[in-house]
């Protein structure tokens, strides 16, 4: 029953993700127009045969910009989640290995502490300090997902460590590293991947938010959040210019949320949300 129910959302997530990935990959080779080409006298045109989704305030082709924007969003997601995933997993497993030690305590306290700083506010401060830009935004978003992965990895690893087969492996004289590689990591990987998918969606939303505030991705690189910000001023004249990037952001976040939920159900039905 549960499995059957979970499948539709997984499938929708998969299809949407596939669509976004395809578009992003396609944009590497082809876009309907040059996304950076400004034709100021053709600005704010409604959708037409020539410009499928119309043009923006500088007369750039919105469809092409959205395509390259998809690439940007995916790249931000991959790198930011990658940072969080790798660093978080290392910290979490490390803490689990030294459970109860002072080091573990300090590490966990530190991670708890970061939760006290609201993500948006911290990202704004980090970006004011480091200077705005997509690289710094990715770092800020990545840093923010470290504690989430670390906590998850620590909890999952603790469970694995308490299992009998680990004790058996230890008794058999396996090295720490090989226990980690052969037993611990494979056992927590599923959980981490599910979380990665959900974090991916959060990373895309975070980048969009920061770019909306003008401190994320900088022009001429197209970013959905920035397109939305630019469009807001022209909304009375060309409402669709604001609608398209908004839809793109929501669609991408939805895709990875559904994918994550679906994966969770498929990998381990017991993990179904509370």
């Amino acid at each position, binding site marked *: 029953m549960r499995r059957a129910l979970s499948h539709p959302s997984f499938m929708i997530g998969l299809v949407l993700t596939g669509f976004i990935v395809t578009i992003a990959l396609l944009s590497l080779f082809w876009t309907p127009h040059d996304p950076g080409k400004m034709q100021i006298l053709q600005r704010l045109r409604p959708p037409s045969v020539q410009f499928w989704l119309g043009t923006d305030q500088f007369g750039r082709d919105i469809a092409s910009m959205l395509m390259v924007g998809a690439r940007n969003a995916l790249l931000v997601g991959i790198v930011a989640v990658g940072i969080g995933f790798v660093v978080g997993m290392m910290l979490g497993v490390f803490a689990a290995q030294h459970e109860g030690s002072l080091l573990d305590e300090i590490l966990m306290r530190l991670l708890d502490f970061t939760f006290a700083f609201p993500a948006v506010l911290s990202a704004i401060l980090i970006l*004011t300090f480091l200077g705005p830009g997509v690289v710094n935004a990715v770092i800020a978003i990545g840093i923010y997902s470290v504690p989430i992965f670390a906590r998850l990895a620590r909890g999952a690893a603790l469970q694995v460590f308490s299992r009998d087969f680990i004790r058996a492996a230890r008794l058999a004289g396996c090295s720490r590293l090989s226990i980690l590689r052969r037993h611990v990591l494979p056992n927590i990987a599923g959980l981490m991947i599910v979380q990665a998918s959900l974090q991916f969606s959060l990373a895309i939303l975070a980048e969009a938010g920061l770019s909306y505030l003008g401190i994320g991705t900088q022009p001429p690189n197209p970013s959905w959040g920035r397109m*939305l910000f630019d469009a807001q001023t022209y909304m009375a004249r060309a409402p669709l210019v604001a609608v398209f990037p908004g839809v793109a952001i929501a669609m991408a976040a939805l895709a990875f949320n559904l994918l994550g939920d679906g994966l969770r159900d498929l990998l381990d039905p017991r993990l179904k949300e509370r």
Partner: protein
Amino acid sequence: MLRFLARRGLSMAATLLVAAIVIFVVLEILPGDPAVAMLGVSATAENVAAIRLELGLDKPAFTRFLYWISGLFVGDLGISYSYRVPVAQLIAERLAVTVPLALLAQMLAVLMGITLGVFAAARAHSRLDAGIMALSQLGVATPNFVFGILLILAFSLTLGWLPAGGFPGWGEGGWRALRALALPAFSLSLPQAAILARITRSAMLEALSEDFIRTARAKGLTRGQIIRRHALPNALVPVITMIGLQFSFLVTGTIIVENVFSLPGLGRLVIQAIGGHDVILLKSLVLLFVGAVIVINALVDIAYGIVDPRLRKMPR
């Protein structure tokens, strides 16, 4: 119980102190000079020195930190560099926008979220349930600023019902102020409502599957009565916890939403303080946001400790 409270309170105070230190250090090294920021393109070295003296920037950092922290206890947060009025006064003025906005949004979120969640659970696995859950997925995926812009498009630009932004102030009558807050609060509440609907639904389903429900059903209570009197009160504990946890998202959500609707609240003040390099204002503002999150999380923890039946049973 008392020990639990004391321990929780102490750790909260420690976290706040560490937060204050981190904020101070980070803001001290922000690039830019407030004195130059105030004088603009015509500033001379003499001008700048005069301003730095007036702002107390010539004193060592540690002294300024002590001033700040000791001032916090008596409500004296110093004088804003850029506005030249007490920081406490600036913050108090802005709270009159941000607090109503956050509360209104929270109310809307709870109202919409719980109602939808209960309906979904009551008709579990029906089309209504599927529809509500699909909507909630969309709600979770759509950030509040996207909602904000779509709402402006629909209700301000197309229908002309509500203002697209700005705030008339409470002095012009509460009605106009509330109208200005309607769209921001709504866009702030939608993602929260979506999350609450999902939590409510699963908590309700869990409650509905428990033994006492079967007993109640056996006693001949109607479905509505069972949901209202038995299932909902039991499902509320996780829902309330979630509301607490989400409150910090709501508070920081105001930063972006106030910028979408150009409301003169704390969130906009943060951006203005960054824009004016008003470090003295910024550090108190950031601490206020961080402190709110820390305090609320601690309160949720404590409330959970009190409400949780297992803790309730413990001897005092």
